[in-house]
């Protein structure tokens, strides 16, 4: 039962990175690809129909984290307080700016465009730093209380992850725009996507190599690492062959794999401290009571299936490029 819920949580967080990752990527590249207002509207219009549905995967994931793994939820955010706060600041700025930017036909939009780009940068960096911290272990004392060590949460290894996530999301955003943006942008997005392959590969290699020295990982993490390298390889081949949809799916998988690696890094432990003799939390300890998990099992997975199906309809209806007749809400 606990394993099932760990998988549900993994599915939701991986889904969030796979989907919302290209939203942030598009935000990162907004100024570079959309050179004028009409261009920027089309770039934002590319993720338009998916945007609201993508962002709420995070809310659902955190809800399941709270419902099924309350003890983990109580440690994981407070232990990395500042990265989570900057993540939220970036997320709020980005999400609000995207939704409010184009609401008035006659108004200037420069400030909103800036807010989208800055919000996307802060969000991408903070996700990387937060996940990098989870790889190293959080600065918690023996009782699991945060030590509040600012330098520990912004360690060089965590900052490497921050930079790495900017590359991964930007790559994903470029691959997405190659599929959905009007054809006139394809050459530019393709070029950017190819240029981002090398930094992404560098991040994977350094993060895995350096991580292997820093932490004692369990063998369970191997599939996630293989998945990441495999996805990057496929993205490379697909971009070269001009198969945009394959490249998009590969980069979505690539962005989702770091969080899967974090979730499988030390099983059956789900959280450890970076402080010597510090705290650690096992999967079973982190979970809610069996009765509660049973109750949630009757309610949540059916709802998840229905919503995923509805979102699938959204993708089916919008699987071609943005054109003259597309509704551009954002």
């Amino acid at each position, binding site marked *: 039962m606990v394993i099932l819920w760990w998988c549900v949580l993994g599915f939701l967080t991986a889904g969030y990175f796979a989907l919302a990752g290209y939203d942030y990527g598009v935000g990162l590249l907004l100024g570079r690809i959309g050179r004028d207002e009409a261009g920027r509207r089309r770039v934002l219009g590319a993720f338009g129909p998916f945007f609201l549905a993508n962002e709420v995967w995070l809310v659902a994931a955190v809800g399941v984290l709270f419902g099924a793994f309350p003890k983990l939820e109580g440690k994981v955010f407070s232990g990395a307080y500042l990265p989570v706060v900057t993540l939220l600041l970036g997320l709020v700025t980005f999400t609000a700016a995207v939704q409010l930017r184009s609401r008035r036909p006659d108004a200037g939009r420069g400030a909103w465009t800036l807010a989208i780009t800055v919000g996307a940068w802060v969000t991408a960096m903070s996700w990387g730093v937060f996940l990098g911290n989870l790889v190293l272990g959080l600065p918690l004392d023996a009782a699991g209380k945060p030590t509040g060590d600012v330098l520990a949460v912004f360690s060089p290894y965590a900052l490497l992850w921050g930079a790495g996530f900017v590359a991964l999301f930007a790559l994903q955003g470029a691959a997405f725009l190659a599929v959905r943006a009007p054809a006139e942008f394809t050459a530019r997005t393709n070029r950017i996507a190819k240029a981002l392959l090398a930094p992404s590969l560098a991040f994977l290699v350094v993060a895995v190599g350096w991580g292997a020295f820093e932490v004692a990982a369990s063998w369970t993490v191997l599939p996630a690492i293989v998945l990441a390298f495999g996805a990057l390889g496929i993205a490379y081949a697909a971009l070269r062959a001009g198969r945009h949809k394959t490249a998009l799916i590969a980069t979505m998988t690539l962005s989702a794999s770091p969080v899967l690696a974090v979730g499988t890094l030390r099983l059956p432990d789900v959280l450890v401290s970076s402080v010597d003799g510090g705290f650690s939390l096992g999967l079973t300890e982190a979970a809610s009571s069996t009765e509660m998990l049973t109750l949630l099992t009757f309610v949540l997975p059916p709802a998840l299936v229905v919503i995923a199906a509805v*979102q699938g309809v959204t993708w089916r209806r919008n699987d071609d490029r943005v054109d003259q007749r597309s509704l551009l809400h954002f």
Partner: protein
Amino acid sequence: MDALPIARLQFATTTSFHFLFVLLTLGLVTLVAVMQTRSAFGGKPELTRMTRFWGRLYVINYALGIVTGIVMEFQFGLTWTGLSAVAGDVFGAPLAIETLVAFFAESTFLGLWIFGWGRLNEWVHLTLIWLVTLTAYASALFIMVANSFLQNPVGTHAENGVLKLDDFGALFTNPALTMSLPHVLSAALLTGGFFVVGVSAYHFLKRTTEIEFFRRSMRVGVLTSLVGSTLVIGFGFAQFGPLGEYHPGKLESPGALVGAPLGFMIQIGFIAFLASILGTLLLFRNWITKVRPLLYVMVLAIPLPFVAAIFGWLVREIGRQPWLIRGQLTTADAVAGIPAGQILFSFIAFTLLFLVLAIADWVLMSRVAKRGPEPVEEAAAPRTELPVLSGV
């Protein structure tokens, strides 16, 4: 520096911002759904344009409801870590159900609705707005279940300082919930009604040419306000009975801090009720659109339900102190051991960001509201040669 008051202030500020937006979201979506339904069942062409115009305002308001909600959800884990340690097995479930069954679904349906204008079958599109409404109400239900549990932790027993769930159903029949949930929902209706009436009044003051459009909007708004204010008062006073049972003396506890907002809220409730009755009487022969002094009052009254709602929320939450879960966990024990300086930083950063975004959002709404609906030709036939088409 003590972290507790800053952490409390941070949560209270976030929640206040969140409440201001979701209150109007809940009320306005109901009105939009009613308008679209009447339009679908062979109503006047104005009704389609009304759905679009009020729907556009609804969508602008919705944006800030989401982002403030995300920050609230994270704050349980950021600063109130004692809550998950003591009551995670109980409190987490309604929140998890809310996020997945209600909010996740709501946003998914709303996205389809926005981008389905003129693209989807009319009946599918109508179903979508009702699904958005329904899931928004479901969201309110589960959040109020969770909040009522904090007020009155029913259906559980304490075991080694940890709350264990005995009866999940008891969470839904909690006396702290049964009257307060309809109270909040009717407050939302009242807020939506006042908003629509106030904006329509503005256009009559500006001698709009869209007389039929705003006359109909005004009528829907006034009747919604009448229903909302009647119910909000009824369910408001109905709470005193159960409250006396589960938390006697709550309203006296920290003196004026609870008494004054309670008094103001009740005053505003009665004023809104009397105003709605007057408005309903004036619907006769559309007198309501012609009495200019009253139109000014209607515009100025838009913020009143928001003020009352914040007061009501203060009464409910301050009256609970010093407990986070009444009788089981104090806020002082629940706060995480984060250095106060870091919490102060996040408090200032969140507050400034929300303030800027809220002002920007309200300015946007007032501009869009003042512009009024799109001219008839454009709404009737979307010009395909336009470079940019907007959903809502």
